[in-house]
């Protein structure tokens, strides 16, 4: 599945995300409905121009190792939508590369 291109610096005003994958659990739907109602009651945040710096051109290519890791992580997510690398026990490169710490 190919997602739509992202834009940045947009005014956030749409009441509901446009994605088609909203068929998740009932609590998820209820919570999203609550947030959507809340969104109608608050003024959407307008992102400042600074965000546009993210459009900077990439400086280098991708290593074979990282591409392999990324494909592995994408496959895991596709196979198990609940998959989430736990911050303290695993990263998506594998259990040998622990990352710890909060600030």
């Amino acid at each position, binding site marked *: *599945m*190919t*997602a*739509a*291109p*992202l834009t*940045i610096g947009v005014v*956030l005003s*749409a*009441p509901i*995300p*446009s994605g088609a*994958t*909203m068929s998740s659990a009932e*609590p*998820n739907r209820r919570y*999203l409905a609550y*947030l*959507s109602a*809340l*969104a109608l*009651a*608050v*003024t*959407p*945040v*307008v*992102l*400042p121009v*600074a965000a546009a*710096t*993210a*459009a*900077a051109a990439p*400086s280098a290519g*991708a*290593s074979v*190792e990282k*591409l392999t890791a*990324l*494909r592995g992580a*994408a496959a895991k*997510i*596709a196979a198990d*939508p*609940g998959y*989430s*690398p736990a*911050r*303290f*026990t695993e*990263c*998506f*490169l594998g259990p040998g*590369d622990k*990352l*710890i*710490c*909060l*600030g």
Partner: protein
Amino acid sequence: MDRQLTLVVKSSKFCNLRCRYCYEFAELGSRDRMGRANLRRLYRTVRDHVVAADARDGARTTVNLIWHGGEPLLLPPEYYWETFADLRAELAGVPHRNVVQTNLTVLDDARLDLLRTGFDSVGVSVDLFGGLRVNQAGRDSQDRVLANLERLRAEGVPHGCITVLTAANIRRVEEIFEHYVRTRTSFRVLPLFDGAFTGQHTGYDVSSAEIVTALTTLFDLWLASPAPITIDPVTEYVERALRYLGGAPPRYYDRRAWLDTLLVDTNGDAYAYGDPYGEPGAALGNVFTTPLTDVLSGPAFDRSARTAETRIAANCVGCALFGACDGSYVAEAEPAARTVDPATGVRACVVERAVLTHITNRLRTVPDLVA
């Protein structure tokens, strides 16, 4: 379902350093510490909360204790050995881990043994450039810390590093990255976010645009490098970008369903990460005197949760990334880490959205990444 409950435990604010940007600066001379009895109370109420929650919804919670300060290793190692014994007794049957966040300036044999066999992992604060992590005499601590890091590596003690990004080092992220590749160390970058007093960060402060540039540069470097290290939060963003590109079912951060990180001050006052830590009236409650379940369902929690939900509503509802990104960044990030929308006074998701956009657009060009 597996989930985490992370407690950032301020065992003592006492510190031998006076890092120029430290948000605890005013309290670094205090020798107050969490007492053993209060820590036992904390363990019991965490156990009661977790066991009840897991029984209710069938999840399995792992409790992470992040021992924090001040400099937590200035306390004698016996302090930790004793409380770890209490922890094992009180949290029997509940998976838990102990992690310490240290400046690593003090590393004798007893502390090395504590790090190796007492803690499950170690986070070391080191900025690599800038000279802002100084002692009371103003002397840079870094040479000693790097030497002690070598000792940790030689002893095989699992560790990662945190590098605070300030004006003194934010333009040197390539050198920072190269250092951690060379030492095969996963690390977190933490943009300067809060101060202990007005004007503390004058001369060191960084803008949102500088942070975005630093994080996107780190992602590009990481992607191009074969080194098997992670960079928090960059690799966390990668996971969210993969979810977006792969069309994974949405997930939404709901603090009322589960608050996964709680900061516990030395006196027992507890704060969500999105709340102004240390400000009068901002605490959710006191976990030395009040059951955690009550703290997480009381009026202060309700007000705090509503404020976090408002941030999600104002920033995320309508964002194309919402669902792949669960909104936790705006819900729980430190107040001063946020650019505030001048029109509404609501913290704006500037950095995360920009970096996620960059990563997503780059990963979109990778062949065969998602079906």
